[in-house]
């Protein structure tokens, strides 16, 4: 695992001048080539963490290495590896798309490469807008330009800080597609979001941060499996006050005509069969059956509230 990680964060703390502790001893390893989703409510410390790794903020304590280099003593090396798409759409209003993307490449010390930039703009459907000043672009287009700027110097690690905030569904799907393509090209991607859907859709691993503490890091699938209980909802034909005692061995909740059964789908016997048999035996009729898997969102809310 160790050789495989591209970013290592050790006991990272950040206390702002006013005394606010934005990060409390965060430890995290990001594997090469993965998509890592950092989830957390507003103000949890997601952006602070990214800002420190990228060099926009200073760490108060702890150490961060990128590609084996320290972010403070070897900042030129680490920053060359990183592309950052910040949360806010801050751009030079008067610059053309082409110029602003080329400017980014130059800042990172790379020789101009018009072919690469052309391909990049085409991939991001920005080619026909290349001569437009930034201020004439829509929010979604600006977001694409921000991504183009971050990719202009061919980084190995891409930080996407809330990439799809305020972006419509179609564009969001489009961006997910882009991100997957980048991963295929070997780019490590760290994205922060509070759209759980996004993490669920894309991430290999998920980290949950709340009040400056990393409370969980898991493979997404495992997390969903581990925490993902299933729920069977049965709509009964008529209201019932009480259930027959033979049903008491099941974990049931009754609310008028809605009967809910919580079960673990991973177990060999989910108990659904015997439950339904019991219902028929007791002559309790039902109209509809529905099962639900808990989403990452529910897991997330449960985790954050447990704190």
């Amino acid at each position, binding site marked *: 695992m160790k050789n495989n990680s591209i970013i290592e964060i050790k006991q990272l703390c950040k206390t*702002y*001048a006013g005394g606010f502790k934005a990060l409390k001893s965060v430890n995290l390893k990001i594997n090469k080539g993965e998509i890592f989703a950092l989830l957390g409510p507003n103000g949890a410390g997601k952006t602070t963490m990214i800002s420190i790794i*990228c*060099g*926009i*903020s*200073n760490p108060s304590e702890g150490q961060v290495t990128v590609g084996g280099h320290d972010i403070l003593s070897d*900042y*030129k*090396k680490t*920053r*060359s590896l*990183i592309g*950052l798409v*910040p949360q*806010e759409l*801050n*751009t*030079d*209003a*008067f610059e053309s798309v082409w*110029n602003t993307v080329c*400017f*980014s490449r*130059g*800042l*990172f*010390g*790379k*020789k101009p490469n018009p072919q690469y930039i052309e391909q990049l703009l085409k991939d991001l459907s920005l080619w026909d807008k290349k001569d437009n000043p930034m201020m004439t672009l829509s929010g979604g287009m600006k977001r694409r330009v921000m991504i183009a*700027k971050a990719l202009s110097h061919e980084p190995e690690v891409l930080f996407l800080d809330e990439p799809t905030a305020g972006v419509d569904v179609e564009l969001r799907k489009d961006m997910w597609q882009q991100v997957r393509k980048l991963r295929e090209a070997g780019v490590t991607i760290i994205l922060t979001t509070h759209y759980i859907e996004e993490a669920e859709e894309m991430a290999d691993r998920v980290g949950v941060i709340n009040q400056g503490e990393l409370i969980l890091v898991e493979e997404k699938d495992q997390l969903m499996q581990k925490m993902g209980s299933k729920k069977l909802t049965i709509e009964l034909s008529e209201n019932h006050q009480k259930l027959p005692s033979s049903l008491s061995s099941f974990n049931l909740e009754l609310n008028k005509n809605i009967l809910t059964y919580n079960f673990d789908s991973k177990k060999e016997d989910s108990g659904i069969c015997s439950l339904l048999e019991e219902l028929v035996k007791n002559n309790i009729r039902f109209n509809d059956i529905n099962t639900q898997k808990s989403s990452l969102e529910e897991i997330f809310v449960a985790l954050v509230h447990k704190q």
Partner: protein
Amino acid sequence: MINFQAIKTIYLFEMARMKRTLGQSVASPVISTSLYFVVFGSAIGSRINEVEGVSYASFIVPGLIMLSVLTNSVTNASFGIYLPRFAGTIYEILSAPISYVEILIGYVGAAATKSIIVGTLILATATLFVDLNIQHPFWMLFFLFLTSITFSLLGFIIGVWADNFEKIQIIPLLVITPLAFLGGSFYSIKMLPPLWQKISMANPVVYLISGFRWSFYNTADVSLNVSLIMISLFLIVCLATVRWIFKTGYRFKS
């Protein structure tokens, strides 16, 4: 390793900004200087005797150049670094593999270049109005360069310090311009009553204009050495302040 590409990128980006605002950056100093020549040089100057053996219209040329170079350096450099801070695009510069010194060279270099261009244009404009015979051309260029760089550094500091546009405007308007006017742009300090002569010695711009005028006409209010020492001192103060800014991350990094 020095990131020359990044320095070049910032420098060219800033120079491109000047090109975009050509009227504001170049035309306005040239026009306002021409107005000074018409009003002070021709209209009023024709009634003033020679100053220190130089015709009044010629006498004010070095002061006028300095006046523009000072305000331009401060304004250009302060806007150059304040705009990305204001627009939020500074994130990109901070996250790029660039050292503070490289950032400084890019921004201050571009601002100083603009000032030198403006200074040269004013000098060229002046030749349309008066006959100029520069006695020490090397020293003239030396003062022009040193002043542009020093005051661009000051502008950079102001651009880092300012947190609104008002602060950016206020220094050139309320500090630099009055100091330049009272620093002997339009008169020799020796023309003042003794008390005011003494007070003027506290004005750093006096030494700049005096030295610059010496390079033109071989006459000065203070000796060349004093001028050089004062400019160097000012340069050192600016560099020390910039060093402190970078060391603490003041207004750059939280």
